[in-house]
């Protein structure tokens, strides 16, 4: 798939998502102008971009839907829930049409039938426009213009297009652009500018040399004409102005290096000699134009931009704003291939390692100047690193909102009534993590609705609200992101679970399992089978996959359940995947990195503490019992430190558990690039990766949740 098409696909799925979000919100919170506006804009954008690629099936369909939305937007037609349902179906249908178009597949009969049905339903809401729209359909079928029927005054625009020389190889055909012009209005005159097209011997046929000067009649505004070029804006130089805006014409001519364009426009009788020589410019002597892209850039001096008043008919009342060419008009969002960001992260990781090396050299040489410079560099590097990491962070809201529909659909299908709550949608998480967590979440949410929440009559019998509640919550906690799915359903039946697990040979009858361990059985593959009974039936299907996906993201999943009260699944995920802020310590001969986010405090393990320990693995920390894990004996039992050496305890926390790690040396903060360890370390519990230090030594990164789990189990 070429880059433009891929962009289209991404953009379309984003727009479809906006549309769905607005529709679902409308069905829950009621329909209002904002939501209709959002749906309209999304439909409009899809129509626009699909048109650029010549995806007529998508354009034709969205055009009708957009017409109805426009009427709704202007309050000429009233909305109702049925109509919202219809728009939801239209959204789904659009998705299918777009998929067909992108894959260049032939549209199957079912889709065609669905297309006709949906169009008929849309048209029933627009009895007044029926003739016009029916005419629309025939017009489209005959391949003529779409919007000519649209009311509104036509104006004639002059569009000057020059392409970057690599435009042809960008995958977008110029003819498609012209086709889209035809959908928006009428090309009155199209003059190819061929003075730059060389003779055959000198021609590189893959390089674009041709340009165009177009007279275009349409009832749409300049912005909509510009939208035609949305996907290729970096590859074209454009000037768009109303035909009789002679100031803009003068500016366009001035931007040319010679008079060729002027002669061409005169020869083709687009403009008279007077108009071209600026005959009418006496009133406003300064040539003014807002020229997109490179026409502006080619001129080295300041350009002057004209901002027209929205209702300005006189053209003489203009606000003139001076502006330097390099200044961007406003902040805009940029779509970048995520691979580029990943590449930057890798590079930054290497820089962090290199920087650590320089820091070490500075320390070894006792060169204070160098140390100071390196310290500045380290701070800056951290800023850059955070900045780049931040690019990848997205709010989970957008991803969560789409679950709303899945919940609604599943609930509707099985006759349950569910109140779905999203809490903490503004929480930010790495985009890759959000994408990878999406499927497991869908699975767990479906389970909650399908098997957790009881049928309304059962709930009433239990004295519960007939409407079930499923909550999806996200919040940051101690350097991790917690995602929680809770329901107020039937809860997990421990006995049934245990029985099933024993029957399947997952655990033996003699195993003495805690509640937590029993609940965790739902993550075992093959626990749930068809013959399983009652409300836990189905739980466990694919839950092993869910757990694996979460573990792949270095996350953990936890489960709490109570009969008739409900079940809560808690997922904890690391904020980032590549570089962490660590704390460097040493135990025995080996250096370790503890993720800074897990550290609560560091204390010296002095004689007083040791006395209270009395050979146990606990100390009394301000009246609280703190379990201690001696790292040397846990990982490095052969090497016992010298007796006189100062010993330290790093107090670490994960979720609600706190333990102390007993180590020898504390070195302080360390930017840590996580490097995966080889397979032979796979079974070393408590180590999640390695990192290269400035000295070239390898340090091991502690997996705090695993260490805590190990220590807690010991008790």
């Amino acid at each position, binding site marked *: 798939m070429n880059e433009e098409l891929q962009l289209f696909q991404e953009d379309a799925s984003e727009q479809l998502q906006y549309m769905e979000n607005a529709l679902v919100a409308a069905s829950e919170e009621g329909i209002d102008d904002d939501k209709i506006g959002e749906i309209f804009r999304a439909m409009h954008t899809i129509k626009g971009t699909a048109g650029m690629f010549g995806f007529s099936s998508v354009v034709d369909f969205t055009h009708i839907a957009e017409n109805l939305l426009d009427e709704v937007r202007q309050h000429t037609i009233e909305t109702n829930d049925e109509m919202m349902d219809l728009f939801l179906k239209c959204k789904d249908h659009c998705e299918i049409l777009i998929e067909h178009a992108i894959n260049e597949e032939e549209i199957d009969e079912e889709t065609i039938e669905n297309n006709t049905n949906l169009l008929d339903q849309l048209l029933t809401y627009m009895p007044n426009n029926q003739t016009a729209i029916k005419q629309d359909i025939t017009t489209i079928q005959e391949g003529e213009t779409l919007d000519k029927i649209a009311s509104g005054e036509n104006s004639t625009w002059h569009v000057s297009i020059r392409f970057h020389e690599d435009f042809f190889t960008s995958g977008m*055909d*110029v*003819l498609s652009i*012209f086709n889209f012009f035809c959908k928006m209005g009428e*090309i009155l005159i199209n003059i190819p500018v061929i003075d730059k*097209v060389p*003779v*055959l011997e000198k021609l590189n*046929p893959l390089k*674009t040399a041709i340009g165009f000067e177009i007279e275009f009649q349409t009832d749409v505004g300049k912005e909509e004409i510009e939208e035609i070029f949305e996907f290729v804006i970096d590859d074209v130089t454009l000037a768009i102005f109303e035909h009789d805006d002679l100031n803009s014409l003068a500016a366009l001519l001035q931007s040319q290096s010679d008079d060729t364009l002027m002669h061409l426009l005169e020869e083709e009788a687009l403009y008279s000699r007077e108009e071209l020589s600026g005959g009418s410019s006496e009133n406003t002597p300064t040539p003014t134009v807002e020229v997109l892209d490179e026409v502006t850039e080619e001129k080295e001096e300041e350009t002057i931009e004209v901002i027209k008043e929205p209702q300005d008919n006189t053209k003489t009342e203009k606000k003139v704003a001076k502006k330097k060419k390099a200044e961007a008009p406003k902040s805009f969002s940029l779509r970048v291939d995520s691979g580029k960001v990943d590449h930057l992260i890798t590079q930054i990781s290497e820089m962090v390692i290199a920087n650590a090396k320089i820091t070490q050299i500075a320390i070894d040489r006792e060169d204070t100047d160098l140390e100071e410079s390196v310290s500045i560099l380290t701070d800056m590097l951290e800023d850059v690193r955070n900045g780049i990491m931040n690019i990848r962070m997205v709010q989970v809201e957008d991803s969560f909102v789409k679950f709303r529909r899945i919940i609604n659909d599943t609930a509707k299908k099985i006759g349950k009534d569910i109140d779905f709550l999203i809490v903490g949608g503004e929480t930010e998480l790495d985009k890759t993590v959000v994408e990878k967590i999406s499927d497991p979440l869908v699975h767990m949410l479906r389970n909650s609705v399908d098997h957790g929440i009881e049928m309304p009559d059962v709930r009433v019998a239990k004295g519960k609200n007939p409407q079930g509640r499923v909550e999806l919550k996200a919040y940051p906690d101690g350097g991790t992101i917690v995602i929680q799915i809770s329901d107020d359903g039937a809860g997990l039946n421990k006995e049934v679970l245990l029985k099933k697990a024993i029957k399947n040979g997952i655990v033996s009858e003699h195993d003495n399992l805690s509640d937590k361990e029993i609940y965790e059985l739902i993550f075992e593959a093959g626990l749930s089978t068809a013959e399983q009974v009652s409300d836990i039936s189905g739980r466990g299907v694919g839950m092993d996959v869910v757990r694996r996906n979460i573990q792949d993201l270095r996350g953990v999943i936890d489960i709490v359940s109570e009969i008739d009260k409900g079940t809560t699944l808690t997922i904890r995920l690391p904020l980032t995947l590549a570089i962490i802020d660590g704390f460097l310590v040493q135990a025995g001969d080996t250096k370790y990195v503890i993720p800074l986010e897990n550290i609560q405090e560091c204390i010296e393990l002095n004689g007083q503490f040791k006395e209270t320990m009395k050979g146990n693995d606990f100390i009394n920390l301000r009246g609280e019992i703190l379990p201690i894990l001696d790292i040397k004996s846990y990982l490095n039992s052969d090497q016992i430190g010298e007796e006189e050496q100062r010993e330290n305890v790093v107090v670490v926390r994960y979720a609600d558990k706190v333990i102390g790690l007993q180590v020898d040396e504390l070195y302080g903060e360390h930017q840590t690039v996580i490097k995966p360890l080889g397979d032979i370390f796979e079974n070393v519990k408590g180590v999640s990766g390695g990192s290269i230090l400035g000295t070239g030594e390898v340090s091991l990164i502690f997996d705090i949740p695993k260490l805590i789990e190990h220590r807690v189990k010991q008790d």
Partner: protein
Amino acid sequence: MLLENENFTIYEVEELREKFVGELHVYKDIEIDLVNIRKIDMPAIQLLLSLKKSCKEQNKSFEIKNINENIYKAFQLSGCDTALGV
């Protein structure tokens, strides 16, 4: 000169340019037969414009014949019908 492919697009232009350059030296007048062509794009149209420019420079006549409806529409849409003399 008969173009044998069905498509005359960016994928064919390099090869066809070579062919045109060769034939331009051989023939006095250039006639391009598009009878087989079903699909055309802007790189191809640009190549024809360039060929026409060469013909003019070398005082040779240039003609395109057997243009089917779709191809003709493409010429019209791009405004190149006049420039190509079709």
